[in-house]
């Protein structure tokens, strides 16, 4: 009787002396995901990056409201004492809150109206992560669907998708994004899904999604082109599986690794894209902050408070580096040819 090594623990002795007799006692067959996890655990940089990403997410979504409560003012509140001699105050300044009390600006003020740089940095992380993760998710979904359809069906569908991706790839991406953000943004900024997102996040997600699906589509297409010729697809077809079932149950699991690796790298790219758009003035509307906006505002202070450029720049560096390193680690971990 054959044994399904993917699912059965083979520690129990088999007829004929079993593994123990052959010095293979305690050896387990591992699923591909278990093998990947073992490989990933050995990649310290990837693990540190993952931890850093989780830390950033916690900082943005849990830490920011806590910090707001501790300092006693919000990220958009105007602190009258935050500006001295028409310059934002520096880090660790205890200043007048304009209501008769004192308040602490941990990283100083971010602008000439005295808003708290530290809180804006934390809340800015929220925007950057939301835009990065959501745009990547939607972009990947679109890319995977179109790529699978093109690769699986071939013919006219493939031609249509391929030409479409080529056309979109030929666009001057940044210029087009700026134009789209400037025109669409005004109309879509008010969509917040009941306050779940900041005004402007949805439009950023939308425009970035529109231009981040074609690379995954091409990668997925080429993989499916090769996978569809494999025996297991032929077998599935022979037992009467529908095309949809083949794509969902047989092809998609083979693409998960690619999607995860590409996704992590794309998140970093999209976070940078959001920052670029915000830096160019077509990002989030006032008063909410994003890292790109903070950078944009900081440029005017580069000779007075150079730290204001450093903080958002550092956050962007840490997050994008973390996603990139995690992506690298995942690619190595999910590579079936890699040794355990």
């Amino acid at each position, binding site marked *: 009787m054959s044994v399904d090594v993917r699912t059965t623990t083979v520690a129990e002795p088999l007829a004929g002396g079993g593994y123990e007799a052959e010095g293979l006692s305690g050896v387990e067959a591992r699923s591909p995901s278990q093998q990947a996890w073992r490989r990933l655990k050995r990649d310290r940089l990837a693990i540190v990056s993952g931890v850093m990403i989780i830390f950033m997410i916690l900082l943005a979504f849990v830490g920011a409201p806590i910090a707001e409560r501790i300092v006693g003012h919000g990220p*958009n*509140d*105007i602190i*009258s004492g935050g*500006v001295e*001699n*028409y*310059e934002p105050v520096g880090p660790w300044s205890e200043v007048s809150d304009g209501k008769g009390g004192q308040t602490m600006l941990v990283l100083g003020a971010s*602008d*000439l*109206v005295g*808003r708290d740089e530290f809180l804006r940095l934390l809340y800015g992380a929220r925007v950057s992560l939301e835009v990065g993760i959501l745009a990547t998710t939607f972009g990947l979904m679109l890319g995977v669907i179109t790529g699978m359809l093109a690769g699986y069906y071939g013919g006219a569908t493939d031609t249509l998708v391929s030409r479409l991706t080529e056309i979109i790839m030929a666009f001057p991406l940044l210029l087009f994004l700026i134009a789209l953000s*400037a025109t669409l943004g*005004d109309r879509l*900024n*008010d969509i917040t899904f009941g306050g779940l997102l900041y005004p402007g996040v949805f439009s950023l997600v939308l425009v970035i999604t529109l231009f981040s699906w074609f690379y995954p589509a091409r990668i997925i297409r080429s993989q499916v082109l090769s996978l569809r010729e494999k025996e297991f697809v032929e077998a599935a077809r022979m037992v009467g599986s529908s095309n949809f079932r083949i794509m969902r149950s047989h092809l998609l699991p083979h693409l998960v690794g690619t999607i995860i690796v590409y996704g992590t790298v794309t998140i970093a790219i999209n976070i940078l894209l959001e920052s670029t758009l915000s830096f160019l*003035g*077509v990002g989030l*509307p*006032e*008063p909410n902050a994003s890292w790109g906006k903070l950078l944009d*505002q900081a*440029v*005017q*202070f*580069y*000779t*007075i408070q150079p730290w204001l450029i450093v903080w958002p720049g550092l956050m962007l560096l840490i997050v994008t580096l973390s996603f990139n390193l995690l992506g690298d680690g995942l690619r190595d971990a999910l590579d079936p040819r890699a040794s355990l």
Partner: protein
Amino acid sequence: MKRRPGLWLALTALVAGASMLGLAGCGSSSSSSSGGGGSGGSEAIPAHQDGGTVKIALAGNIDYLDPALAYYQSTWQIEYSTCVKLTNYKDEAGDQGRVIYPEAASSLPEISADGLTYTYTVPPGKFKFNTGEAVTAESFQYALERDINPKQQSYFGAVFLAPFIEGASDFKGKPGEHVSGIQVDGDKLIIHLTKKDGGLISKLTTPFACAVTKDTAVDPKGVHTPAGAGPYYIADYTPNRSIVLKKNPNYTGDRPAYAAEIDYTQLTIDPNQGTLEAKNGQLDYINDAVVPAQNFQLNKEFGPDGTAGGPQRFFITPAAVISYLALNTSRDTFSNEKVRQAVNWAINRKDILQPSGYGAGIPTDKYLPPQFPSAGFEETIYPLDSSDVDKAKQLMQESGVQTPLTAVLYTCNQQPCPDRAAVIQQELKAIGINVQIKEFDRGVQFTKEGNKGEPFDIADEGWIADYYDAYDFINILLNGEIIPETGGNNFSFFNDPSFNKRMDDANQLTGEERDKTYGQIATDLAKGPAPWASRATGTNIDFFGPKIGCQVNQGSYGFALNTLCIRS
């Protein structure tokens, strides 16, 4: 904030000696709460070399170099050095720079007893264009007809001249056709009006009335290098890139022209780059490219008492500007005048000014700049250095309007506009008005706000005086008789028949009676219907490289380019 692109200053003779509030030549203006780094800029002429090239950069590009169309502050500054006008302002600082004197004309015009005919005498050959052509009465006749010509699409011609000059509305600009109200008789230029216009001399002192050669084309896109009869002429213009001014070899006037060439080497420089280059001497002069956040430091180093030593290089000069929030009376949010008054009480003008940087203006609630004679008759009504939220809340209650209200604020997308909008947003929240900020490129913002039906409630706006007369603010910005479907500048869409009549009547007046009447209209507007929440008067900020001398901070057009010299 960028203002009406390009409106610039001029002045009636009446302005001289009026209440200047110590603005001109104000080396001591640093006592102002928001700064003001001194503005004299008229040191004794230092040792300098003849010739040389002055390098200038602009952050905000230019609109046109064609006198019929140019309307940016920067282009009026250029035209001041390249143009000859019937009457002009002298190359002098402060009040003296706002006194009208006859330039191409032999004297100020003779005005008929009924006030409807103006006669200028233009001695032929007193001035010559760089092309060699003499400036004559015909040069001005053609210049004004070109402004009025509908094919030229000059804002000035349509708004400031056509409603007053006889036959202007019938003028089609056909070859050989003339406006019946603009006649030439020998060396006389005779202008007939349909109704009295107390501001005509001032209007004809703006660069729109520059002399032009007879072969200057009528072109709504603007002529790139019109001939000049001033100390300099425009030798070359590459749109979006550079402008070259050269000395007019045929200039016969007495205005100075020291540098051989004035080059605008960059027209869209990044302000950070521009400030750095001017500081290091790679650029000789910038004005709109100074980073507001660096005003304080630059003033400390290069201002009147600069720590860097040497002559003053950084200048902050009060300008005839009013920055205001136009409250759209045609929409529900601000249809009630008590709500508009509440906004005026709720805003802290000093805080709103802060993002514009050191020396960027002085809080005001007035509708007229302090340089205007009429401003002396205008009352202060609202708080300037604080807000009165209780009073504002009380007015909101009296209005009977249900709060919270939502108000859409249009502003520009360059600093300090977004920061300023954030301050306004926070201040109006306190009285139950939730402000939604919409940012646009400044040009787009301005155009949108001028369209009827545009869905905004507050416009963050400003207006620089074309000339020193209240007509330019009150009638041009608030008379509701003509609000076009598009391209308007009555951003509050204010249209009150009783005020319209008062404005029209006031423009018939002259002298102190005119000033008093306009001052009263401005006070009544602010107190009653309150279509604006005025917030600040403005300043010009200029920064020179280390080698530039001979600066004259001309009272009407900012620093005169023709007087700039290179220190030896």
